[in-house]
């Protein structure tokens, strides 16, 4: 269980996140829905300790707030950052290897590629030539290689057309079914059926009531 307790993030005079609390359990998908600037990225970055924040983050019984992203990664909390954030000058293969290596993984990248067949022909291309959809797949695959218990996907649907969106959802659902706890952010997220277990609307740094 990943539990956020009263997380507040401030940038100078601007309060990006105002005492937000949330519980994410393994094997579920939670969505934080809100427009640009509502505080989604700040929340995810606060969880992994990439921005200074107030409040507590608990992983099971351990207090993990204000640690470094490297620490959170070892604990199994992995971020797929907003805008993909690939290493443009590295090849697709190397981007994947990075995901494996930072987590201390020893396996091969082949296993992950089963989920992402479209990356196979791109393995030796530098990542900056990838299209938006391909880049998002690579970012997800890279995060999967870090063997997450909790996956925080920041705006994974941004700038994608219908086909790639479907595919991103499918991968998130597969991961959930394998027991990963997933937190997805986005704008006007609409899904069919029972994909999402928890849906929060965020506005001006706080969750709106309802839903």
């Amino acid at each position, binding site marked *: 269980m990943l539990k956020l307790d009263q997380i507040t993030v401030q940038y100078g*005079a*601007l309060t990006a996140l105002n005492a937000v609390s949330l519980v994410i359990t393994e094997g579920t998908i939670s969505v934080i829905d809100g427009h640009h600037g509502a505080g989604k990225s700040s929340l995810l970055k606060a969880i992994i300790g990439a921005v200074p924040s107030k409040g507590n983050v608990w992983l099971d019984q351990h207090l993990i707030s204000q640690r470094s992203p490297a620490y959170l990664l070892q604990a199994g909390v992995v971020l797929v950052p907003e805008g993909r954030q690939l290493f443009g000058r590295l090849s697709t293969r190397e981007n994947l290897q990075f995901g494996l290596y930072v987590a201390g993984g020893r396996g091969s990248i082949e296993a992950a590629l089963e989920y992402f067949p479209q990356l196979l022909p791109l393995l030796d291309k530098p990542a*900056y030539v990838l299209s938006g959809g391909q880049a998002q797949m690579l970012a997800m695959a890279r995060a999967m290689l870090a063997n997450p218990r909790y996956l925080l996907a920041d705006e994974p649907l941004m700038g994608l057309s219908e086909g790639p969106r479907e595919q991103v959802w499918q991968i998130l659902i597969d991961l959930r079914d394998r027991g990963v706890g997933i937190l997805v952010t986005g704008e006007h997220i609409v899904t069919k059926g029972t994909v999402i277990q928890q849906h929060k609307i965020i506005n001006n740094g706080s969750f709106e009531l309802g839903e």
Partner: protein
Amino acid sequence: MYSLQGIGKSFGGIDVLRDISLTLKPGQRLGITGANGVGKSTLINIATGFLKPDSGHIQLNNKTLTHQPAWAFAQAGIQRTFQNTRFLTTANLGEQLLLAARAPESKRRLTKLIELSGLQASLHLFPDEIPLPMLRKAEVIRGLAASPEVLFLDEPSAGLTTFELDQFGVFLQQNLGQKTALVVVEHRFDFMLMITDSVVEMQLNRGLVKRGADVKT
């Protein structure tokens, strides 16, 4: 009259903008909406000269600006604001506003705008001491001081509460003037309806698509 014709831009082989055209008459108020990542920011950056398009033309009153540097756009009367507001943190607000209003006429206009906005008390403060709603107003004033031809606002609602945004909208409506055309890139539809007279939606790979009944573009 300000126009973008057939603007195209790609980054690293990926088309971000494809054949975008847009014409603004003096005083026209246009809203642009669209999901994150469809290229709204890229469009603003091109329209204000901060990025050079791969193809297409930019014209203001029959003068071609396409290959001019960004400062020439600003001097020609194309002003903008930034998503997170942009000020120098080491000078007080008053000095920075004065820097934007160099002609005597602009100075008079600036003084008037400052009065109307209630910013007098903040003039001697540094930007990091001023609350965000005030800074947003200040940024608009900075843009309006020189009576620009076009003013671009990049996501002015970010970080404002509904109440603050309302006030901001009222302030804009009252002070834009007849001549200045306005382009707002925004996702808050209520705010957009309040200050614009037409809205277009930017869609992935499809450019600007009309939205609403009374579209004039």
